[in-house]
């Protein structure tokens, strides 16, 4: 219980009141800071807010914005919503799987890329779309994807 938490967590405890309602907001900050929700942070929040670990785990696994594993430097999201799907977004997703050897929800061993499928981003007019760290690439093709990946891999 007397575990030492890092500066970030300590700062969080100063910023927020120990009120159960603050859980999601604090999880957001944790996700933002570490790129995922580490177990130590879950435990810290559990002690601080008086919420059981199982409940926090339940919240983290419910919302897709939270992840339990460290995320890649680049988060590749392919829209599989109706419009994008009809326009062939599955091919984009398959191409990423083929090139990076990771499945949906996984991260490359070098920590560079995380792949996820998502639903509509509200850019159906640009279908099919994929995003890189939230930046939208519209009217996507496999060739266009390859160019983007090549570019990112240079970094």
């Amino acid at each position, binding site marked *: 219980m007397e575990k030492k938490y890092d500066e970030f967590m300590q700062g969080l405890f100063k910023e927020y009141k120990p009120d159960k309602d603050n859980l999601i907001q604090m999880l957001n900050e944790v996700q933002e800071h570490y790129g995922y929700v580490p177990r130590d942070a879950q435990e810290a929040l559990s002690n601080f807010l008086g919420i059981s670990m*199982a409940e926090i*785990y339940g919240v983290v696994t419910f919302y*897709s914005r939270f992840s339990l594993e460290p995320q890649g430097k680049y988060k590749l999201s392919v829209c599989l919503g109706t419009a994008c799907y009809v326009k062939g977004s599955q091919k984009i997703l398959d191409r990423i799987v083929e090139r990076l050897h990771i499945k949906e929800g996984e991260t490359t061993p070098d920590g560079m890329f995380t792949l996820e499928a998502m639903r509509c981003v509200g850019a159906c007019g640009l279908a099919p779309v994929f995003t890189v760290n939230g930046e939208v690439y519209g009217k996507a093709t496999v060739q266009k994807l390859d160019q983007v990946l090549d570019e990112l891999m240079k970094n």
Partner: protein
Amino acid sequence: MEENLITLTIDGKTVKAKPNTTILTAAREAGIDIPTLCFLKDINNAGDCRMCIVEVEGRRGFTTSCITAVAEGMVVHTNTPAVIEARKTVLDLILSNHHEDCLTCIRSGNCELQALARKYNVRKIRYTGEKIDHEVDDKSPSLVRDFNKCILCKRCVATCKKVQEIGAIDVAERGFSSCVSTVENRSINDVDCTFCGQCIESCPTGALHEKESIDELWAKIRDPETTVIVQTAPAVRAGLGEEFDLPIGTNVTGKMVSALKALGFDKVFDTNTGADFTIMEEANEFIERITKGGVLPMTTSCCPAWIKFVEMNYPEQIPHLSSCKSPHQMFGALLKTYYAEKEGLDPKKIYTVSVMPCVAKKFERQREEMKNKDGLYDVDNVITTRELARMIKEANIDFEKLEESQFEDPMGEATGAAAIFGVTGGVMEAALRTAQDTLTGKSVDAIEFKDVRGGAGIKRATVNVAGKDVRVVVASGLKNARKIMEEIKSGKADYDFVEIMACPGGCVVGGGQPIKSSKIRSEVDVRELRSAALYTIDEKSTLRKSHENPVLKKIYADYLGEAGGHKAHELLHTHYEKREKYNLD
């Protein structure tokens, strides 16, 4: 207060109900049953399962009766063809993702889902598709979680979170993957569960149950080389009959003893005798602490879920716990030492079994501290009341027709004080009876401490013991236990002696007792009925104070020496250790 009542019509019947009553409650109070699945009175009304849907005139679609309040002039129909069809569809959908192994399921015959499928004549499951497939968690000595049988009613989650305020389990994931999970879906053995087993009592299906240890026991009973000695906890006799369709709260002591003999146990003893030892040691410890300035308040230590709770959550308060072992552990320790010696038996060939209303006792018996100096466990096997009933059925014993018989001498005698150990407040009352006689040096007649009786979660009283005011607290349910521990921790505790039981109401409604359906729990107070059986045993007992038990007197004189003495400490006391809440690495 007639004018405050709301008038509505349910199935053509005019019904009056208090404001804010749900349609479900109003209907049931009027004698109209509505089927439920996720509803559990006072614990869970989430409106999740949709079994309790009804039609309300003027409203579109179906109304979920467990979460909808009555309104003036409301016209409700609980049983229209549309309602019945919809309920069938609900069942169909639940069953489409259920492992249908009813034949071999531990809850077959006492499963709320099975009962509803039968009631609604579900003959064929129309929907087929993907089914959940989870690994069964049977790593803990107490509890088995089989999520493949779970219907996500969340009654267990509500029990753990709201009644006990532990929250070892909660709903995780989303959509089809939703499941009741521990943190990181670890074994219940590796998280902050206390093994109170209240989740089992609230589960409508076979998703949660005790870790059975019947097979091992049959093998020992059938082994001619082994002397198998059984003892039964106070609360078992107040619950066992229900498994044979006897009314709730029937005292079946005599038939139970006969059944145990018929099952082939070599000796049948009473944990109540152990409880009398516990009182001797605990009352003595309390007097020592009070007169010699020991750590106060002192709390009882009979409940293994409570002990695990303190070890995990309040390790710095461990000195407040009495060092006494629980009654069946004390008794087991004596069986393998005193009794073995007296009867000329090799302790290694004695197999001790405790029938308990509890699943935490399965964990307790295998604690390292519960081994004697020869490395033998005080108790070799713990079975629940339910498991005993299953064994009796398996042996084809007609329970109701059994003659009554008595526990065996010389270790089968017990007092009324011991019988009430199974009820919240009972240990306190038993201890006070002995403490007042010990302190005054005479036999005090006033022995009923009514202030510590009843179902309240926390009972506070000041009792006069030998001219001295003793402030006592009795708490049951871990939510209440936590409140008391917070008082102690913050220095606000102004009392001397605390009794705690993890299950709300005490062992009579423990996690190993017969499981009552949500419907029965809505209609009767199971705790009260079973408790009454134990108080009656006490009232009818000739001996009602532990220290008057002749078995104790003899064993202290011949073997143990003084209460709290060296030998008593070696056999009857234990110690506790800080325990990590989570073992995740």
